[in-house]
């Protein structure tokens, strides 16, 4: 008799568990269909954009640690100045052989490259945004300081530990190397926690994990770990010496300043 009783108990537990699960799913679906609609997904994405581009300007230094599939590491350092969403200067400071190399991004996809060994700048027209930036796992597209909500259509996929999971699909006319980006957004402060990008074949391509901290009233990226699953290559970008709203001069973002090294 004993074993039968145990079985019965187990079955009962299972049944209760199942019922609970169904309830939760049901509640969640009500929550989704009632509390959070498609426009809410767009709203979440808009708020994420607001967090990402909250400061008027920002300066920081960044350390990039590149790790290949065999565990080999390479380290690069750079200083970054950014104003608004469309002006950015990226100047490498280490290793010595690469020190001084700089990228200047201006509005309307205008970009200049400066190489100190050549002593002059060259304008770069990049029609290809999926190229790796400086050997990292970030492409130009990944680093683009452009609002996600202008390029992607968001839909809410569900919740994970109380955070939103959005599915971003490129809007008509957006040229993206990704068919979909699945982004986990912190539901309290609206900064991204994780982005999983799928290639155009719908396969996992890249995974970015974010570490945000609050500084001077802004939520800002402290560290991003980007893994290219196909290359089996990882880049850690660690931001340091972050300063906001120091009133960066427009002169910083000029070709003349670019070549002054």
């Amino acid at each position, binding site marked *: 008799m004993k074993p039968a009783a145990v079985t019965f108990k187990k079955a009962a537990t299972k049944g209760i568990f199942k019922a609970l699960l169904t309830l939760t799913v049901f509640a969640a679906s009500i929550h989704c269909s009632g509390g959070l609609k498609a426009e809410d997904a767009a709203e979440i994405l808009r708020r994420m954009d607001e967090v990402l581009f909250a400061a008027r300007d920002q300066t920081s230094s960044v350390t990039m640690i590149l790790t*290949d*599939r*065999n565990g*080999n590491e390479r380290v690069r350092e750079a200083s970054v100045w950014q104003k608004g969403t469309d002006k950015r200067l990226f100047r*490498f400071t280490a290793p010595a*052989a*690469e020190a001084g*190399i700089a990228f200047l991004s201006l509005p309307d996809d205008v970009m*200049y*490259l400066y*190489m*100190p*060994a*050549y002593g*002059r700048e*060259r*304008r*770069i*027209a*990049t*029609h*290809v945004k999926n*190229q*790796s*930036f*400086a*050997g*990292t*796992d970030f492409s130009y597209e990944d680093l683009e300081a452009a609002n996600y909500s202008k390029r992607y259509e968001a839909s809410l996929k569900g919740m994970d530990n109380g955070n939103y999971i959005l599915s971003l699909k490129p809007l008509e006319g957006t*040229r993206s190397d990704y068919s979909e980006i699945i982004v986990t957004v912190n539901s309290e402060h609206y900064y991204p926690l994780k982005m999983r990008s799928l*290639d*155009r*074949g*719908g*396969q996992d391509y890249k995974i970015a994990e974010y570490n945000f901290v609050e500084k001077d009233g802004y939520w800002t990226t402290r560290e991003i770990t980007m893994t290219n699953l*196909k*290359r*089996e290559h990882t880049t850690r970008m660690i931001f340091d010496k972050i300063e906001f709203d120091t009133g960066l001069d427009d002169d910083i973002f000029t070709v003349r300043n670019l070549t002054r090294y």
Partner: protein
Amino acid sequence: MKRYADFILRYRLAVITLVLLVTGIMAYFAREIEINADVMSYLPEEDESASLFRRIGETYGGNEMMIVGLESDNVFDHGMLNTIKQFTDSIRATEGIGYVTSLTNVIDIRGSDFGIEIGRLIDEYDIPEDKHELLRIKEYTLSKDMYRGNLVSGDGTATLVIGKILPGVNRTGVVERAREKIESIGFEGSVYYGGMPVTMLELNNIILKDIRFIIPLTFIVISLVLLAGFRSLKGVLLPMVTVLIAITWTLGTVSLLGYEITLLTNIIPVILIAVGSAYAIHVVNAVMAEMHSFPADAVKKAVSYIVLPVILASVTTMFGFLSFIAGSYLTMIREFGVFSAMGILFSLLLSVSFVPAVLSFSGPGKNKSGRKKTAGPSPLKLNAAMLSKKLPRRITPAIWALVAIISISGIARIERRADIIDYFRDDNIVKQGEELLNEKFHGSSPLYLQVKGDVQSPEVLSAMREAQEYMEGYSYIPYSQSVADLIMQMNDVMGEGPIIPVDRAKIAQLWFLLDGQEIMEQHVNYELDEGVVHAYVTSSKLDVLREIDEKFNEYTRLKSSDEYQLTLTGVPVMLKSLDDSIIRSQAYSLAIALALVVVMTSLLLGSFRYGLMAILPIAVTLLVLFGTMGLAGIPLDIATVLSGSVTIGIGIDYSVHFISRFGEGQKQGLSRGGSISRAIQTSGRAILINMIAVTAGFAMLTLSELVPLQRFGILIAVTMLTAGLATLTLLPLMLYGKKSDDNNSN
């Protein structure tokens, strides 16, 4: 031998049980056997050039490229470009593919007055429809070395889509999945496939097909021949069961020792069916001949005289196969030799233990046919007798002399082939893909120049470029590529011309721009102390390969310095080594096999003269073999090189059995003529049946899709016929000797 026969009879139940038990165990292991179609793994590990080639192929991704070729009237057409995009997307979406390069996604970096333009050669999101725009793109594309001959043919009619397979995944599986996707795209032009993973998949499929189709067919054909020859079910069933057991044991051992089936070991079952069956046949035949008494007595009597020649015949065959160990370059030839010899050994062991043990259980005198054939005048006997005695005595040698002369005239014409691509039939996709690559692109045989040294130094980059110019000066090497080319292009883009900068800092900064590009992984290692120049050779002619090997090795020796070292490797170098080894193997293995055969037969027949006589039919057969190769245009390749030793191994069976029967007759006090008649009646019959069976068995190999195996099948079929006929016509003549000898000895 009588004691041995007693032993087998006493423990016959134990023998049968043990054999069945071992077969069960071996069958278990044989089921686990795997196929290895990775041609690279056949290269010897101890050879420096081969291991460097393999390492470069693995490190720099050359072995992981799946190449898809598309051919139509004009590649630069809106519809065609859309198709290329579809192909590109399909391959890219295949699991296991890392990245894809094609006309519709290749990066184009150009310097202009404006600055640097980094873009796509063709915008895949907005493929132009305008004729003038398409023509402009065509002209631009064909003007650049990076694309012409690499991604698109010089005449603009063919293009390549190249997929790089990720490391550590099952390459053949990826190719299969990608092909499925591609084939669902409706494209009206021609599609071609190339690259090492595609070749591997094809070989894998062919090996499987051969195993599933040719082996059972050989089995059936030989069974039918034996059935027709012996007109007895027992005479067929027992040898065939024995062969099946021997095959199981051999494959089980291959698997147990951790080896895999290669494109050569794949034919071992066919060889065992054709050759290994002979030993059991001889034993069954001998026992049947004695079947007028009780089975146990018949077995005892037959075993006592048949075991020795069977052992001798099989041991000589084993040596024929083992002789491949000497001088063979490819590990698969060595494995083939060892495992074939092992299979022969198993066949022998079973024939002299299992077969008599089983026969001893059969009823007495039931086998009428067996008795009838040995006693009565059979058509076989008449034929044999006619061949040897009834023909005027001078005509037989005259005919053979003529055959020999014709053959010798053919020997000088024998060609040699070492190219892997020749393994495939003309209608095979790998062969067709290869032809496309050689005719319209920069070729398909990769040649690598390894450069060890600081690849960011101007000196090393200049040395690379200099070596490339030297290579490209050779008419069979249309193109080469290295990181030096990329640096030169980038320097040009920076406005300082297509040269290697002398300033190291400039190189480092250009490098920074290239860093992380997938193409860099094909050119330099992570530590930046090694680079590779990729080139292709459009010819597989051996004299061309030999010249390339000699000239370039001389070059690398002269140019290497303390700062950098150059080493050449690649398919052409491998092919040259392979060809050298084929010739060496042929010489070694023939010499070893012939010498062993003379020694063994001399020992067996107790006379050096007989030993020499025994190899005469073999010598004639070898002449015919090589003559046939020369006259029929069958080249010496990785499989046909085996035919000489296999011929010696199998052909000697005939001589040994015939001469030993003759000796038996002499011992019993028969005259020479009588002994010869006796030998023809008994051994002659077995030889004829075996000859037809082996010929038919090997002829089945012509159904293989691998050309060397087809050729091997034809050659062995021809030589077995020759060996049989030579034994039955020449040996009687020689054994009979001059009339006076005969009178004296009587």
